[in-house]
């Protein structure tokens, strides 16, 4: 129990540090939110009025203290760019980014695990080398370019895919898939290479263990050997990798959402940064960090359940 409490406390500390880093960056980053929003034709009178109204004439540390005060009570303030509550904006985006991330992870799982197990059983076969090279190419392509090529060659060919924008699941399941599969694939492709490699290595490692040889010599069927023993033991390192992959997927949504015009958290964050929308940036960064840290936390916990020795 003490372990969990300690982990939770560390999670909290990380969040505080992230918010401080964001604050520190905004302290030195040049640019004025109102001016960016209104552009060069803006009327100086209007700029002044708006700054006063939004409290932007206050120094940033006061704004930050106000923000912390609000955040403790669950109020994340109002976005400057969109003049709406930050929490509303974030909640609107969560389904999109979440669907995208989950779909990406599913793609990684259903492609990388079978491939990894397959080559682990035939290590050093030509297939093994070919797959490891091909998947690495997937890692090496710049994601926005990959997205563009997918749009060009798949999106434009099959009308099933909607090239940009988002159709909510509630409206049409097929429609939602049509908007999400290509971006999910763009995010998943580089991750497939990473996880494929890890799965291969850890399955391979288990298969060379003594217990596998013993089981085999006792005539255990290969199938149940694989499922009951090898995969189970190989799961621990695989799980860690999926923790990392989830973080990468969340990061991957940022550029990919931009390419596919998906109004998710990532594109909201890029906009918020370029508009110097301090409350919105803080809100989203906190949220993304919370997810990433939380996933790692869950994985650590799972880890310690699977292998109780790992309790630091």
């Amino acid at each position, binding site marked *: 129990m003490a372990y969990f409490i300690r982990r939770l406390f560390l999670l909290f500390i990380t969040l505080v540090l992230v918010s401080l880093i964001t604050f520190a960056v905004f302290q030195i980053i*040049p*640019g*004025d939110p109102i*001016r960016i*929003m*209104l*552009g*060069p*034709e*803006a*009327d*100086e*009178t*209007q700029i002044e*009025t*708006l700054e*006063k109204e939004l409290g932007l004439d206050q120094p940033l540390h006061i704004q930050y203290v106000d923000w912390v005060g609000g955040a403790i009570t669950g109020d994340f303030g109002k976005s400057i*760019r*969109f*003049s*709406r509550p930050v929490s509303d904006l974030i909640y*609107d985006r969560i389904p999109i980014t979440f669907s995208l991330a989950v779909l990406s992870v599913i793609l990684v799982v*259903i*492609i990388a*695990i*079978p491939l990894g*197990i*397959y080559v682990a*059983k035939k290590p050093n076969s030509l297939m093994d080398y070919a797959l490891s090279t091909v998947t690495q190419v997937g890692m090496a392509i710049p994601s926005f370019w990959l997205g563009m090529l997918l*749009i*060009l060659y*798949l999106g*434009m060919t*099959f*009308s*099933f*895919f*909607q*090239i*940009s*924008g988002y*159709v909510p699941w509630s409206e049409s399941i097929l*429609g939602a898939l*049509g908007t999400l*599969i290509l971006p999910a694939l763009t995010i998943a492709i580089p991750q497939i290479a990473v996880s494929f490699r890890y799965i291969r290595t850890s399955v391979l490692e288990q298969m060379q263990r003594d217990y596998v040889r013993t089981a085999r010599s006792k005539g255990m069927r*290969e*199938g149940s050997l*694989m*499922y009951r023993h090898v995969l189970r033991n190989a799961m621990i390192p695989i799980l860690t990798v999926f923790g990392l992959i989830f973080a990468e997927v969340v990061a991957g949504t940022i550029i990919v959402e*931009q*390419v*596919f*015009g998906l*109004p998710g958290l990532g*594109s*909201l964050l890029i*906009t918020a940064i*370029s*508009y*110097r929308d301090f409350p919105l940036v803080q809100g989203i960064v906190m949220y993304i960090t919370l997810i990433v840290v939380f996933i790692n936390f869950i994985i650590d916990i799972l880890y310690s359940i699977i292998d109780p020795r790992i309790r630091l």
Partner: protein
Amino acid sequence: MQNVFKKLVPITIFFALFLVISACSTGDSDKNKDGSSSQEINIRVNNDPDFLDPHMAEASITFQMLLNIFDGLMVGDTDGSLKPALAKDYSISDDGLTYTFTIRDNVKFHNGDPLTTEDIMYSFERLMGKGSGKPLTSNFDNIASLEAPDDKTFVITLKEPNSAFLSYLTAQDSAILPKSNDGKHNEEPIGTGPFKYQSYSPQNNLVLVKNKDYWKEGLPYLDKVTFTFQPDDQTALMSLQAGEMDFVSVGAHRVPEVENNFKLEYQNSNATLLVGFNEAREPFNDTRVRQAINYAINKDDIIEAVFSGYATKIGSNMSPAMGAFYEEGLEKMYDHDVEKAKNLLSEAGYPDGFETTISISSHAAMYTDVAQIVVENLKEIGIKAKIEVVEWGIWLDRIYKGRDYDMTIIDFTGKLSPYETIKRYQSEDSGNLVHFSNNEYDELMKNVLLETDENRQIEMYHRAQEILAEEAAAAFIADYQIIWAMNPKMEGYKLYPYFFHDLSEVKLVD
């Protein structure tokens, strides 16, 4: 061991099949491709509106959409002239101080309330910050009094004559809002225009629906208009081709890809693309240096490379879209001439050129494209220019507001009023990015506001443009065209010399 793999293979194959099958079975139902019966269109817009409240909004891209929701007393027509809108009629007193408007009958706001002079009064007072102490514009600082002698008449009295005043009375600068909606203009905007606000989802779309009680009989035709925000040009074009969008702006170099399947409209954007110098700094305080740079820059090359020829060369900060106010011929003043440029540079004391920096914003590829050509052009006369690209926010802060730069590239959007279009070159104007300073120009611009005779005004504006060109206030490059590609079924779209997607007369025809 083999059978494990055998179990996994079907999963992979199943998924692959699923992808292929679902790809073939088209989910067209939600794509509105038929269009025969439904009068609904989807328009791509690059960016979100800054505000839905038209009094707060400033960006031209916002008004492109919002002008469908709101009206002003006046409206700018397709030729740039001003016409009465919510005012049925107006008169200006001989001294140019009193503007009397007769308000149109039977105008209703989208919430069903009739338009009253009280709403008009409220709208102007809100803009002027009366009561709130928070003025939203300085345009109306010149107003001495507002009166509504009866419920069909509205009178504005000025402190001093201003020939540009009428142009401040359009929905861009003074949309008429219902007083009853006070405090909610940004959340639930209500106007009198052909379309009503239905929903706004940030970074996704703005949806408008037909206003059945629109004061122009029989209009509009469309039932629903969706403005979809899409920052990526490439994606936008592809979604047009995929039938997801009906109306998209396309880059000039993309024309061959769309000209066969879509209807194209070419709009002079009434923008001024220019290379500006910081004239408070050496060596740009010397007119000869600025002239030399003007001679060195090859405007035709820029127009060809950056706009594939779809741009009009200009010679001062005004586009031919401004009609009679535009002074023709200035664009020929600095034809590309390296020798002349070198001589001028030597005369100014820089025979070997100098080093400088061109600071531009990263938000549009246009600036970097132009900058690269300018650098090459300047190299020919010995000026070594470095390109510095900064974020839009930093450009506005450091270069526009802070004036901390040597050279920059920017495009200024044109206004309906010639005065508004070129006022920034007055020495004391807060928008005088290039620190231009010329006494004759300042005098002219002050006097043109007091001038009531339109022909005299035109002459004065012509002279003002000449000064900008002769003194090389900047290197004025071009007014680039915006090319709209639209669903071939779309009819009735009109082009304006300002940013406005006028959808009131648009319909889809088979």
